[in-house]
Every structure is written in C-alpha cells, then in structure tokens.
C-alpha cells in the first residue's frame, strides 16, 4: 500500500490526447511506490476548492520517477489542471488505494477492460502483467493479456499505448471504431476468453462485468468511483455496499479510497 504523503510534483509534460482529455506526466518520489489501479489526489490551487481530486495512475516510469495521469475535464479542478506547464509544480496526495491484485493474475489469461475515463488505469496494469517493460513494480506476469476498451467514438485515446503491451479490442458506442456497443459486446464478438478480468469504467459497465463474470465463472476485479473528501479512509465519505460485513466498518460498507478502489466484483453489492 506504499507510504502516503502530500507533496509537490513537478510537471514534466502535458498534452491533449483527445477533445477534453489530457495527458500529464508528473515527477514525484511517490512513483516508486505506485502500483497499477492506485490513484493520487491532485489539489487545485483555486481557493474556492479544498478537496483533492482523485485521479488514477495511468502509467509509471520508475526510471524517471514519474507517473502519468490521464484525465477528462469535467469541472473546476480538472479545468485548472490543464493550465499547468512543464516546470510547474502541483500538490498531490498519494499513493492512495489498493490497486489491482496482480498476483491473482499470475500465469492466467487476463483481460483488462476500460470504459471511457476508466481506460487509463488499465494501461499500467497491462504493462505490468505483460512483462514487456523494464523496471516494473512486480515480477508477476500473466499467461496472456488482452485489452478490451470502450470509447464513445473514434477518439480512442491511449489505444496505441495498449498495443505495446497487449492485444487490443475496441468497442465504440457509435460504432466508428471496432465493435459497435460496449466492452461486453466486444468480448463476445471477438471471442475473447479469459480467467481474470481487471476493469474500470462507468457503473453500468461494471455491473455488466460482474454479471458476465458470474455467468462465466471467472473472477473480475473492478475499480469503483465515489465522491471523496479525505482519500485516506478517515472521513467515511466514499463507501460502497459490500455483501459481507466489512472488516473495518463492521457494517456492509467498504471505503473505496482505502479498501478499494479495486474490489473483487463478487464482494460488492450493487
């Protein structure tokens, strides 16, 4: 779970990947502890805002001690983030959350699935599991890694990056690229088989994946999203409903920021 700190991170680069989607590399010591599926809290400097914005780690470059964040502009904070230039500093809180359980994928056929702005965290996941890169955080590799990514339209950001580490299947809502439909449609149409799914995306997609995994008798790890205040497990703002009484809360609530964001789909009570 790494150490946690709030510290300055230096902007190495920032560019627009697609309309409203930005790609930001930050230099930070925290990179050394970053695992796929974990996230950081990024603080806007705008004084009307106080809370850190949770953004997933998209990629890690341990050599440069850098993390990559890919984010969509939706409000005040993310709009501010687009203004940062190389050399500027941003305050981040990290490393947060548990990340994907790579060890559960050792030697198995894995599909990483992302939908919309849930695509980014799967990149480092695919990279790690593929073993096709230097300086990884674990030496666990999967038997095979396929990426199934869902987009709205032909703006298939990060697609090229995924191709470096895995086979890539694309689904688009408007059918402009790949399968018309969602990631589950694409799985079926492209006959993608697997033992383990690791996924992040909008709630309907995650529900569909949970159902799909149950039906196929495979394991799915899903990354959830909720409004957060502290990001470190103290405020109890970000809970999700669990099947069993949760060990920390002693009610059926797990904290997404610390017990998650990644959960075994089986444990979640949607």
């Amino acid at each position, binding site marked *: 779970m790494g150490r946690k700190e*709030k510290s300055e991170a230096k902007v190495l680069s920032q560019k627009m990947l697609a309309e409203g989607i930005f790609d930001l590399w930050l230099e930070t010591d925290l990179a050394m502890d970053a695992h796929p599926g974990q996230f950081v809290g990024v603080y806007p400097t705008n004084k009307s805002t106080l809370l850190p914005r949770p953004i997933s780690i998209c990629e890690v470059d341990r050599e440069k001690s850098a993390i990559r964040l890919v984010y969509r502009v939706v409000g005040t904070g993310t709009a501010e983030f687009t203004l940062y230039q190389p050399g500027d500093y941003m305050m981040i809180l990290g490393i947060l959350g548990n990340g994907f359980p790579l060890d559960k994928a050792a030697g198995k056929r894995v599909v990483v699935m992302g939908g919309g702005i849930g695509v980014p965290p799967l990149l480092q996941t695919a990279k790690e599991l593929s073993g096709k890169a230097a300086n990884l955080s674990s030496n666990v590799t999967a038997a095979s890694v396929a990426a199934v990514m869902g987009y709205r339209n032909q703006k298939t950001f990060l697609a090229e990056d995924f191709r470096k580490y895995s086979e890539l299947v694309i689904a688009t809502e408007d059918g402009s690229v790949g399968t018309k439909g969602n990631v589950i449609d694409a799985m079926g149409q492209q006959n993608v088989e697997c033992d383990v799914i690791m996924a992040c995306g909008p709630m309907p997609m995650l529900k569909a994946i949970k159902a799909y995994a149950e039906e196929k008798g495979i394991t799915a790890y899903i990354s959830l999203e909720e409004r957060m205040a502290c990001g470190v*497990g103290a*405020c109890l703002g*970000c809970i999700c409903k669990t099947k069993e009484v949760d060990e920390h809360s002693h009610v059926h609530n797990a904290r997404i920021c610390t017990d998650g964001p990644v959960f075994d789909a089986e444990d979640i009570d949607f």
Partner: protein
Amino acid sequence: MNTQVEIAGVKFKNPVMTGSGTFGSGMEYADFVDLNKLGAVVTKGVANVPWPGNPVPRVTEVYGGMLNAIGLQNPGIDVFIERDLEFLKKYDTKVIVNVCGKSVEDYLEVVERLGDESRVDMLEINVSCPNVKEGAIAFGQNKDALFDITSRIKKVAKQPVIMKLSPNVTSIAEMAKAAEAAGADAISLINTITGMKIDIHKRKFALANKTGGMSGPAIKPVAVRMVYEASHAVKIPIIGMGGIANGDDAIEFIMAGATAVAVGAMNFHDPYTTEKVVEGIENYMTRYNVEDINELRGIVE
C-alpha cells in the same frame, strides 16, 4: 512558553485537537502526523451498536468548504474499544471519545461502557449531527432536551463530559447555558451548519441525504461568533472549531474565548494541518512574546 491548557482537570499539552469524524481514530492520519504532538485526538462518533450511515454520495465540495452527510457510520462501541482505543494506547496524547445515539438510552449505554476505559480522558456528546433523522440534532436544537440529556449523561459518566453544540439554533448562548446548568464540564462548537447543494445539470441533490453539514473555512466567521457568544454566556471551558486551517485561525478562536480548538475539514485539504496549527500557535506566541497561551483566551472583549 506554555501551551498547556486544562479542561475539567484534564491537562492537554497544547490546545489543538482533531474534529470528530474528520480524523477517524487517528490511525489513518498517523501516516502524516505525529499524534504525540497533538493536544488530543477526538474520535469519530461511536454508538452502542454499528451504524451503516447514509447512502452515497455522502460528501460534496462547496465554496471554501464541504458538505457531508456521513450519517454517523460507526462500527459500534465493542469494536471501537477493542480496535480504536487499543490503537490509541501507543500514543502520548489525550483521547476524547465522541458519542452518538438515537435515544438517550443509546447515549447512556455508550457512556457507561466507556466508564472503565482508562484510555478515555473525556467524552464529547454529539447532540448536533444534522445528518441523522432520529436523536442527535433534536437534542441539540431544543434547550430543554439538551438540559435533560446532559444531566442524565452526567449522572452516569465517569469521565468529564463535553456537550457538542449545534450552530443551527437561534441562540447559541441559551444552548450553552442549558448545557452548563445541566452540569456539562465543557462545551464544544460548532458542529456543521446544515446546507444543501443541487447539481443543476443532473437536477439532483449533490448528496443522497439532500442536506449535509457544512464545514471548512467558509463557516469560520459564524463559528468564531458563536464561540464568542457562548464564552460570554457560560463559565465552563469551550473547545472551538469551524474552518480552522492554521495557527492564526486557532488564535482567533482562543481570543474569542476558546480554551482549546479542533481542526476538522482542513485535514482533508492538508493532512498535516493539525501539526501546522500547533506550530503556528507557537510562532504567534514567539512573535508577540506571549508566555502562556492561557493569557490570550477571551482577550478580545
């Protein structure tokens, strides 16, 4: 330089505490802050049995602050004693346990259970949470109900009792007086101010609970005013809170009449805030040659 303050016979190494519910039981913030440096850790509200709290979304940001409607989720007193109090035994700081309940009996049960726990230095009774339908705030918005619950708790409590007051009242002075008259050893204020946010694009409330409690720098002027009014209404010590972000804010509350202060929502903005507040108070004292923090209390009349 003396930063020690005393409330109902309990000595705190400095006046800086954590706002209940914003710091867990200290565990999560121990990664960031040395708990030994704090005057006290005030724990998240605990009830006689586990509470699931409210549905999500439970938190949302507002200008200069946030709204929360956690709804007092807590693991219940048993787990709290075994796990949280146990954890706090490692630290050299005072422990104030925040207690919640739906009925007077609920409160009494928790207070009695805590009676034999030597790790507990004081009790803070939350009668001011705006986010639960039953109990809680009902006691905090009616002076007779407040008097009643306070005196009943005082009868069974083994530790000194702090009554935590709601700002959602016409007269904070009256509420403070009722708590004092019923035997409270201290009062703390303010709990959150009831607020609402609507997402105009989704045409929905930002919080599942519709309303939430507002906290953060935006509420500080209201909190300082209420601490001032309360401190002129009662003789018992006051723990002041509401938007404290740094040492200067803490000094402001102390000058308004607070004996101690608590840092709440700003922990989320900066997990080091509590320690920085301790340092900031010391810096102010050094700059203005203040020998004893107690000299500053209520100095602005």
